[in-house]
């Protein structure tokens, strides 16, 4: 408040300054009157007395100003005067002003937008307790090629029993879906099954009700907590929701609480329910485990302790031999996919800002030179260096603030575009998990950031011209009358540096963008192993958990899926349809395990492969080529011999040149039934576009029906036309069967390529901006240089130098600098593009063709930028040139 009070006092002094001036005037006049009265009393005539009073008073004007200054708001008035003067100067040269403001707006706008993005995505802490101490714990088995596998409930129980000291607490969860019935249309909701330390682990303060109690873990409790979003949508935010019951998977659950809205950032689910004993002890893997580290324990220490724990567990349970754990902080896991893209962009916009500043500094410098005479006159009239520097600083800060405001608008527009076209979800590699990106806003800190950047640039380039000016001899400036002397080109060193820097930065950005273009086109031209166009995918989950569900019998599940498929295939417009456990590239889930080949026993390492249950017609629908043998038929069901189809990767790795047809695959657990290989299909990129296809074994779904399957439908009709028909077809089999996660294959592919796509689009725009800025900057420098040498050119032409020779001379000097800049840029690019290597696919970060192409492009653009002003100078009539200033 005191600061505000002080500001207010200053402001009112400023506003009322004419009133205060009047007061001072009156006081001084009164003084003179008194003195004159006294003198008059001594017998001097009134007129003479007044004259003498003034003389005795001393320099009236001087003391008036000094009194004024003594009142303490002198500086504010000076500043206001400088600002007014600055504005007048800027208005007098609109072209200069507009050029500077737009250049700065580009630089500052790009930086603000990216700052908002980085802050929103990378720097926003998760809205949970001790978010920085949460780590994700995965199982790994390097021997079997498993880098990150979700642990099982048994793992969690083991770890908890071993009381790993590094962790305060461990938390187990499983993503899933459930069917809600009895409240409007049947609906598939996203669910989360959690251990009952859920509330305490994340420090959740429920909006209403409570979270689970520890004693609710071991018995089967049908309690549910709703997410804020679901509560708003389904219950219209009803405050009496706690205590109501809901039907989930055919069972009645009691709602006990509502989560805060912010929890969505961590788990975007609808309903949270506790694990019960039965679930906890299942050996299924692919659950999630988070640990909360004790304060001051590092991830490395925790990992060391976990590896000891795993060794102990392996001694007790030999089946766990070979397994280890991988620990990664939760906050970095969530963003590990997008971070490199953002960091590369961060560098790029930083370069743009430097380019913008270089251009503006250059413009200021040129202008400072042309104002040399003005400055010299002012200094000879008594202006101090401080005053001159202040004037320049005020002018440049004005420009910077104008640029900053325009930049803020640009940033606002960019953030708007991001919200519209940017990705909303990003995958977490190898983790079958996606992160919903938070919405990006321009907040107070972004505006503060802009202000700081603007003022910093303002001060930076405001200082250059006066410092350069004082380097020279002011007297010369005065004598020359602003006329450039031949041979004397002041400020040349600075401008030389600017041209070199601009060339170098532009080259780095162009190289980066070209690498991205090449990489992205490579990425898009990757054959994923299937035909992604005109494919619709949707998921169906049978409610086998419900007590009275007919789907507890696996064969009923198979026949239900069979019926769904039959009805969907009959929908007009559906070319073909099939079922698969996992849609390629969808990051839905992972199903991977060991296998053995009956005919080739005795190898030490158990090979592993992706397991996929699919229906007949899957390969045709996806257009995965059949290379050998046959694909699944309707008759490959439980009543017939077990069969599998393998992919080309597996065939090549484990069978080499032999034909795998007729050989047998055995899964080394359970009943160990040999399954005959009946066909080989093409390899499919399942987990990422840029990765290598994994060995895959396809099983006919009727020989081991799952609870959840995805349906892939090939159709030429648009999604919203065909989807209701497909739903109706499914509902004609089972009225209560929800359909969810409806996505086109294009959408799925879009998610997988989101990070390179962001980097690709933005980096291209930035490189273009950089190139334009550099061209403008080089053009500006050359124009100024040439203008300074107009007389010289005139002399040369008058004495008969051929115009082309003069032109060559002018261009050569500038081009030398550009080549120097390009050389520096090449070195920087070699160092910097390494940062991008994780974003690049199929192109080396030092691709020589790209480096060459970018060099040629930048050199050509820069050469044109210095050719144009040089040509103009040579075309001027020599006589005019001679007389020019």
């Amino acid at each position, binding site marked *: 408040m005191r600061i505000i009070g002080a500001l207010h006092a200053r402001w009112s002094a400023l506003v009322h300054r004419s009133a205060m001036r009047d007061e001072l005037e009156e006081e001084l006049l009164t*003084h003179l009157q*008194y*003195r004159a009265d006294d003198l008059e009393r001594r017998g001097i005539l009134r007129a003479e007395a007044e004259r003498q009073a003034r003389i*005795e008073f*001393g320099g009236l004007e001087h*003391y008036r100003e000094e*009194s004024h200054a*003594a009142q303490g708001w002198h500086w504010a008035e000076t500043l206001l005067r400088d600002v007014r003067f600055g504005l007048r100067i800027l208005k007098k040269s609109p072209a200069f002003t507009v050029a500077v403001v737009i250049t700065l707006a580009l630089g500052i706008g790009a930086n603000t937008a990216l700052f908002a993005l980085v802050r929103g995505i990378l720097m926003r802490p998760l809205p949970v307790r001790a978010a920085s101490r949460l780590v994700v714990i995965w199982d790994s088995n390097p021997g079997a090629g498993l880098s990150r596998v979700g642990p099982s409930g048994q793992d969690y129980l083991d770890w908890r029993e071993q009381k790993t000291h590094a962790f305060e607490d461990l938390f187990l969860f499983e993503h899933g879906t459930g069917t809600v019935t009895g409240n409007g249309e049947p609906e598939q909701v996203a669910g989360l099954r959690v251990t009952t330390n859920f509330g305490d682990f994340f420090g959740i303060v429920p909006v209403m009700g409570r979270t689970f109690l520890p004693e609710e873990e071991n018995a089967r409790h049908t309690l549910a907590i709703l997410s804020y979003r679901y509560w708003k949508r389904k219950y219209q935010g009803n405050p009496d929701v706690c205590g109501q019951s809901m039907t989930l998977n055919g069972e009645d659950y009691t709602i006990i609480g509502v989560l805060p809205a912010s929890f969505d950032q961590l788990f975007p689910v609808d309903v949270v329910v506790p694990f019960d004993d039965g679930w906890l002890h299942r050996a299924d893997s692919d659950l999630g485990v988070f640990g909360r580290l004790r304060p001051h324990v590092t991830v490395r220490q925790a990992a060391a302790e976990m590896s000891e724990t795993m060794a102990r567990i392996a001694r007790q349970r030999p089946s766990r031999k070979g397994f280890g754990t991988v620990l990664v902080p939760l906050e970095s896991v969530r963003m590990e996919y997008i971070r490199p893209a953002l960091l590369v962009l961060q560098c790029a916009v930083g370069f743009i800002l430097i380019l913008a500043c270089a251009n503006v500094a250059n413009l200021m410098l040129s202008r400072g030179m042309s104002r040399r005479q003005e400055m010299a006159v002012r200094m000879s009239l008594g202006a101090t260096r401080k005053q001159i520097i202040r004037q320049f600083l005020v002018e440049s800060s004005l420009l910077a603030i104008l640029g900053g405001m325009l930049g803020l608008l640009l940033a606002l527009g960019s953030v708007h575009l991001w919200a519209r076209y940017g990705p909303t979800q990003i995958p977490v590699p190898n983790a079958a998990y996606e992160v919903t990106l938070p919405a990006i806003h321009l907040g107070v800190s972004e505006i503060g950031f802009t202000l700081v950047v603007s003022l910093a640039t303002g001060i930076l380039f405001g200082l250059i011209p006066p410092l350069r000016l004082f380097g020279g001899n002011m007297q010369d400036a005065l004598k020359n009358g602003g006329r450039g002397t031949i041979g004397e080109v002041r400020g040349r060193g600075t401008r030389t540096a600017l041209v070199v820097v601009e060339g170098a930065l532009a080259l780095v950005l162009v190289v980066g963008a070209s690498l991205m273009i090449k990489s992205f086109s490579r990425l898009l031209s990757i054959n994923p192993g299937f035909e992604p166009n005109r494919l619709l995918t949707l998921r169906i989950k049978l409610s086998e958990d419900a007590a009275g569900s007919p789907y507890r019998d696996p064969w009923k599940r198979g026949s239900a899926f069979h019926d769904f498929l039959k009805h969907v295939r009959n929908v007009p417009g559906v070319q073909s349809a099939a079922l698969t456990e996992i849609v390629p590239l969808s990051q839905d889930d992972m199903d991977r395990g060991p296998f053995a080949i009956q005919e080739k026993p005795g190898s030490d390492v158990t090979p592993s492969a992706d397991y996929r249950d699919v229906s007949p017609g899957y390969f045709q629908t996806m257009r995965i080529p059949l290379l050998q043998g046959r694909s699944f038929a309707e008759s490959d069901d439980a009543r017939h011999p077990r069969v599998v189809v393998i992919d080309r990767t597996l065939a090549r790795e484990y069978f080499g040149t032999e034909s795998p047809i007729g050989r047998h695959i055995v899964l080394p657990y359970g009943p160990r039934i040999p399954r005959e290989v009946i066909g080989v299909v093409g390899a499919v990129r399942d987990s990422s576009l840029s990765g290598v296809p994994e060995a895959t074994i396809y099983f006919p779904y009727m020989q081991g029906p799952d609870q959840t399957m995805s349906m892939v439908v090939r159709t030429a009709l648009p999604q919203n036309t065909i989807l209701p028909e497909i739903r109706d077809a499914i509902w004609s089999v089972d009225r209560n069967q929800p359909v969810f996660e409806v996505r086109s294959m294009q959408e799925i592919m879009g998610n997988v390529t989101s990070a390179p796509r962001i980097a690709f689009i933005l980096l291209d725009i930035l490189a273009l901006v950089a190139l334009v800025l550099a061209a403008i900057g080089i053009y500006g420098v050359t124009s100024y240089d040439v203008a300074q040498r107009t007389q010289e050119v005139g002399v040369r032409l008058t004495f008969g130098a051929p115009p082309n020779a003069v032109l060559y001379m002018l261009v050569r000097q500038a081009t030398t600098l550009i080549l120097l800049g390009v050389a520096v840029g090449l070195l920087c690019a070699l160092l910097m593009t390494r940062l991008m290597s994780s974003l690049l696919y199929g192109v080396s970060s030092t691709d020589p063709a790209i480096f060459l192409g970018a060099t040629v492009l930048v050199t050509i653009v820069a050469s044109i930028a210095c050719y144009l002003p040089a040509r103009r100078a040579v075309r001027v009539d020599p006589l005019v040139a001679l007389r020019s200033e």
Partner: protein
Amino acid sequence: MPDQAQLLPGTLDLLILRAVSLGPLHGYGILLRIGQISGQALMVEQGALYPGLFRLVRQGLLKTKWGVSDANRRAKFYELTAAGRKRLQAETESWNRLVAAIACALSMQPGEL
């Protein structure tokens, strides 16, 4: 007035405070009072008074009030504030110490060392 002494730098403020301490005065009045209390021996350049006054007001040592003078003119009167009174006392003491020390130094005879 050849026997008038020039002010030592920094003493104007002390004189102003002292003059005003004897009762509220307007600017010209302060000038006259300084002449009066110094036995017309100290000369203040008239114009130099005002920057000094404003400085003291800004430091919170003086406060001002517009009023009507004995000559029936509207004038700005200066008064000591509590802080001003304290400052005057402190400055007076330190001045006296300085004067005593200098006098002592100047009156020292060679034999007395």
